[in-house]
C-alpha cells in the first residue's frame, strides 16, 4: 500500500487524540499494524465470540463463575477508612503497610472529587514484612505529627500489615512511649483488612475506631432529644451533607453529623491550599456520646458502629440512603420523633414540590425498566425511588451486597407491584451485569463511571449517581438525598430519557415526525 504523505496536524486547528487518530494517515497505519504485526484473530471469529457473549448460554457460564471476579463494583476496606478520617477536624489518615496503596486511595478520591486528598503511609517494605512494622509506625507518626500539624491521626491498615499481623493498639502505644506524638494526642485506629468485606466496612471500622477512642471510659449523661447522624461512605457527601444539615436546621434539631467530609472535599479556590477543612470537631465527637440516639444514613456502612452506639446506651436506627419521597419521609419522621421537633411547613412544601414534579413527568417514567448497581444502601434507595416513579428495577446488583441485603431487598421489592419482576444480584460484578443487560435488557442503567463500558457494549444509557464518577464533573456537589435531592435525581433520569428520545427521532425526514418540541 502506498503511504499517505499528507499531514493531519496543524497549528491553526490542533487535533488531539479523539479526532487525530481518525485521520486517514493514522487509520491506515493502525490497520497495517494490526495486519502485519499483531497476529490478530480473523474478524469473523471475533464477531462470533462477540455475539456469543450476548447469549443466554454465555450468561449461564458467566454467572456460574466461582473464583474469577471481573469488573467488580466495590473497593477495599482502607479506602473507606481514609474517606471516613477525612470527615473529622484536621485529621490525617495514616495507613500502616505498603505505600503504594495510599497512592491509590488518594488518586481514587481525587479523581472523583476533583479535590486534594491527603493521607500518609508507613511505607513498609521487605524488612518490615520480616520484622514487623513497629519501627515504621514509630518514625512515621513522629514525621506526620511534625510535618502536617494534625489534630488527630487516624490509623488504618493495608492488607500487608494485616497478613503479617501487626497490632495497631500496641504499636501506637509503643510509638507514644517513644515520644513520636504526645501521650495525650489522639490516634484512633481501625484494622481494615482488604480481604474482608469492602470499603463500606472500612468506613464502619474507622468511624467506630474514632468513637471508641473518644467515648471509652467517659461517663455518658444523656441529652434528651439530641441526635447523632452518620452519613456513611458517600461520593455525594458534599451535596448530601449540606442538604441534610439544612433540613435539620429547618427543623431546629440539636444534632451532630459524625464524619462530615463535605468541606474537606469541597475547598474553595482563593489562592490558599487548605490541607484540612471542616469535618466533625473533636469536641463534638466527645459530646456526641451524650446524644439520645445515633442514626445511620447507610445501614451497611455502620453495622459495627451502631452496635457500639447501642452498647454505650444510645438508641439507634439506620436508613438506606434516604432518597426520594417515602425514604425521606421516614427519615424526617424518625428525627422528629426523637428530637420532639415538628417537621416544619417549609419542608412539607418541598415534599409537595418533589411530588408535583413526579406527577408532571409520570408518563415518561411509568413502566421504564432499570438496572441499578452500587453500594448496598444506594441500590436499595434507588430501587425504591424508581418504584415511586412507576419504574421497574429489573436488575439490582451490589458486588458488596450480603445475604442480609438480599433478604432486605426482596422485602422491599415485594412491597410494590413495580418490584414484582425484579432480580437481586448480591456479590455479582459488572461483567455479570453485561450478560444480564444483553439477555434481559432495560431502558436505563444507574451506577458509576465504570458503567460506561456497559453503556458502550449494550447500548443501555448510563446515569451516574454513585461513587466513583471520574468522567463527569461536579455532580457530587449537588445532593441526592432528601426531597431536593430527589428532584435532582428525577431531573437527571428525565434528561437521559429525553436526550435518548431526541437522538432516536432526529433523523431528518425519517424519524423526525416524533422530534416533538414539547414533551
Amino acid at each position, binding site marked *: 500500500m502506498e503511504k499517505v504523505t499528507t499531514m493531519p496536524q496543524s497549528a491553526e486547528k490542533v487535533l488531539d487524540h479523539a479526532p487525530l487518530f481518525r485521520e486517514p494517515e493514522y487509520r491506515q497505519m493502525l490497520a497495517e499494524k494490526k495486519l502485519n*504485526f499483531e497476529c490478530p484473530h480473523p474478524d469473523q471469529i471475533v464477531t462470533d465470540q462477540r455475539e456469543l457473549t450476548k447469549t443466554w448460554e454465555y450468561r449461564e457460564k458467566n454467572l456460574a463463575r466461582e473464583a*474469577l471476579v471481573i469488573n467488580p463494583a466495590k473497593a477495599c476496606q482502607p479506602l473507606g477508612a481514609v474517606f471516613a478520617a477525612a470527615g473529622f477536624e484536621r485529621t490525617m489518615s495514616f495507613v500502616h503497610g*505498603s505505600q503504594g*496503596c495510599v497512592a491509590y486511595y488518594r488518586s481514587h478520591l481525587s479523581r472523583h472529587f476533583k479535590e486534594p486528598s491527603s493521607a500518609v503511609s508507613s511505607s513498609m*517494605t*521487605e524488612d518490615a514484612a520480616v520484622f514487623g512494622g513497629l519501627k515504621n509506625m514509630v518514625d512515621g507518626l513522629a514525621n506526620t505529627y511534625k510535618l502536617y500539624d494534625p489534630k488527630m491521626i487516624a490509623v488504618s491498615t493495608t*492488607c500487608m500489615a494485616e497478613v503479617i499481623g501487626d497490632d495497631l493498639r500496641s504499636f501506637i502505644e509503643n510509638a507514644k512511649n517513644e515520644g513520636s506524638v504526645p501521650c495525650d494526642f489522639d490516634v484512633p485506629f481501625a484494622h481494615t483488612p482488604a*480481604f474482608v468485606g469492602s470499603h463500606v466496612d472500612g468506613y464502619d471500622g474507622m468511624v467506630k475506631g474514632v468513637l471508641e477512642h473518644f467515648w471509652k471510659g467517659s461517663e455518658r449523661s444523656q441529652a434528651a432529644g439530641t441526635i447523632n447522624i452518620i452519613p456513611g461512605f458517600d461520593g455525594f457527601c458534599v451535596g448530601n451533607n449540606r442538604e441534610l444539615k439544612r433540613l435539620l436546621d429547618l427543623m431546629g434539631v440539636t444534632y451532630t453529623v459524625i464524619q462530615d467530609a463535605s468541606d474537606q472535599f469541597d475547598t474553595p*479556590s482563593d489562592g490558599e491550599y487548605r490541607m484540612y477543612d471542616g469535618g466533625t470537631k473533636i469536641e463534638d465527637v466527645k459530646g456526641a456520646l451524650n446524644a439520645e440516639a445515633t442514626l445511620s444514613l447507610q445501614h451497611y456502612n455502620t453495622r459495627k458502629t451502631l452496635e457500639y452506639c447501642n452498647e454505650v446506651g444510645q438508641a439507634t436506627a439506620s436508613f438506606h440512603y434516604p432518597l426520594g419521597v417515602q425514604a425521606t419521609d421516614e427519615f424526617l419522621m424518625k428525627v422528629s420523633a426523637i428530637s420532639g421537633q415538628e417537621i416544619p411547613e417549609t419542608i412539607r412544601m418541598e415534599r409537595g414540590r418533589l411530588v408535583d414534579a413526579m406527577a408532571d413527568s409520570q408518563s415518561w417514567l411509568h413502566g421504564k425498566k432499570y438496572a441499578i448497581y452500587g453500594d448496598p444502601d444506594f441500590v436499595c434507595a434507588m430501587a425504591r425511588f424508581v418504584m415511586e416513579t412507576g419504574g421497574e428495577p429489573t436488575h439490582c446488583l451490589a458486588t458488596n451486597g450480603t445475604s442480609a441485603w438480599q433478604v432486605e431487598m426482596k422485602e422491599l421489592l415485594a412491597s410494590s407491584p413495580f418490584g414484582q419482576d425484579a432480580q437481586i444480584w448480591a456479590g455479582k460484578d459488572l461483567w455479570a451485569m453485561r450478560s444480564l443487560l444483553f439477555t434481559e435488557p432495560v431502558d436505563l442503567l444507574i451506577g458509576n463511571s465504570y458503567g460506561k463500558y456497559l453503556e458502550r457494549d449494550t447500548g443501555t444509557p448510563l446515569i451516574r449517581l454513585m461513587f466513583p464518577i471520574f468522567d463527569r464533573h461536579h455532580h457530587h456537589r449537588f445532593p441526592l438525598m432528601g426531597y431536593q435531592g430527589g428532584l435532582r435525581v428525577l431531573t437527571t433520569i428525565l434528561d437521559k430519557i429525553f436526550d435518548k428520545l431526541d437522538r432516536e427521532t432526529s433523523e431528518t425526514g425519517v424519524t423526525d415526525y416524533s422530534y416533538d418540541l414539547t414533551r
Partner: protein
Amino acid sequence: MGLDYENDGALHAKLIEDVLSQYPDKAAKRRKKHLSVATSQDEAGGEDKGLSECDVKSNIKSIPGVMTIRGCAYAGSKGVVWGPVKDMVHISHGPVGCGQYSWSQRRNYYVGTTGIDTFVTMQFTSDFQEKDIVFGGDKKLEKIIDEVEDLFPLSGGISVQSECPIGLIGDDIEAVSRKKAKEHEKTIVPVRCEGFRGVSQSLGHHIANDAIRDWVFDKDDVDFESGPYDVNVVGDYNIGGDAWASRILLEEIGLRVVGNWSGDATLAEIERAPKAKLNLIHCYRSMNYICRHMEEKYGIAWMEYNFFGPTQIEASLRNIAKHFGPEIEEKTEKVIAKYRPLVDAVIAKYRPRLEGNTVMLYVGGLRPRHVITAYEDLAMVIVGTGYEFAHNDDYQRTGHYVKNGTLLYDDVTGYELEKFIEGIRPDLVGSGIKEKYPVQKMGIPFRQMHSWDYSGPYHGYDGFAIFARDMDLAINNPVWGLYRAPWKKMKDAPLRAVAAE
C-alpha cells in the same frame, strides 16, 4: 537546547534549608540527601558540558509518614509494563483494591474489541477473602485461569500480577502457571510484583522485565520473517496515543516497527522482539533491563531516544537514522523538512504566549528530564524538577538537560513540594493527580504529566502541537485571575491571564 538561562540557585538552596528545618532530626538527615541545586561541573564552560551528576541520592526507601507520592511494585508491573499488553488477561491476584484503583487509569490506548480479543480496560481480580489468606490462593488461581479460558477463549495469554499477600502467604503461582500453561497451551506469566518489594514502582518494572525474559522469550514457535529495518519501540505505553504519534514518524523514515512495548501491543509483538535489528527505548527507567538482556543474549543494540518537542525529535531521528545508514538518513532529512513548517507554525503561535514562563516538574522516572527541552522549545524555563523513582543513572542523564541553579528533588514529600511551589511560585506545575488540586488551589496552573491530563498524545510532531496548546490553555485561562474576591485587599500582584485566542 538553545535556550540559555540560569536559575536562582541561592533561593533554591534556602528553600531546601527551610523545609529540612521542619523535619524531626532523623528524617531531616535522610531527606537532605535527596534535595539539591544543580551546579555546573565546569564553570568555564565548553561544549556539551552537562552538569555534575545532579548530586542527589535516589532509589532509596521512602521515610514513613511523610506523604511520599510514590507507588509500589505492583503499580510498576501491572500498571505500567504488563497492563497495556492488550490481548492478554492480567489478573490482579490478591484483594480487590489494587486492581480497582488502577483500573483504566493509565490511558494506554489500544484498538480492539474489549472483552472479546482485548482486555486492557477491564479489572480481573481474584478478590481474595480471608479463607484465601489462611488456606492459600493457588487452588483459586487454578480455577480462575480455567474460568478465563472458558469465558475469554480469544485471549492471547494470561499474566498473574501479585499483590502484597501472595508473597507473604507462600503461594506458588509459578507452579500453577506452569501447570495451567501446559494444560491450556497458552502463555501464562506469573509476576512477583508484590507491593512491599523494593522502594517504589521501579522494582516492579524490573520484575516485569524479568518475567518477559523468563516466561515469554525463547518460545520455539515464533514464526516471523525479519527485515533489515526492523525495530522495536520499547517503553512507550501509548498514553493518549503517544506510541502512534511516534510510530508514524519511524515508519516515515523507512523503519518497520515490528513491536511496540507495551502500549497497544499484542503478546506476539513481545515474543518476536528478539528478531528485530534495534531496540529504540523511550522510557529508559522502566524497560532498560530487557534491552540489556536482549543485547547480551541476542546481540540487539539499543538506543535511547526522546520524542518530546522538535529539538529532541530531530536529534533523535537523526541519531536513529545514523544507525541504519544513508538511505534512511536521507529519508529522515525529508521527514524533518516536511514537519518543519508545522513546528514553525506551532512555535510562532504559542511561543509568544508562553515565553519566559517558569515550570516545575515532578513526575516518574523519565519525563522529569525528557520533557524539559519541549518546554524550552516554547521558550519556557524549567526551574525545578524531580523524580518519584529514578536511579542514579537517571540523575546522571538529567545533568544534560537542566540548567545551573535548577532545584532538584528526589522522592519529594507532599510537604516539600508544597513549600517549594509556594517559595518559587512557578507559572506552571507538571505532576500527577495527587498534586494537581493542591497546586491549583494556590492559583498556579497545572498539567498532569502522567496522563497528559486526559489529552495527548504528546510524543512526536503531532503531539508537540497538542503539548503546546495544552500548556497555553493551562496557563492562559482566565480563571486564575478570578481567585481573589475584589472586596478583599490585595496582598500580591494580580495573577496574570492572557485572553484565549
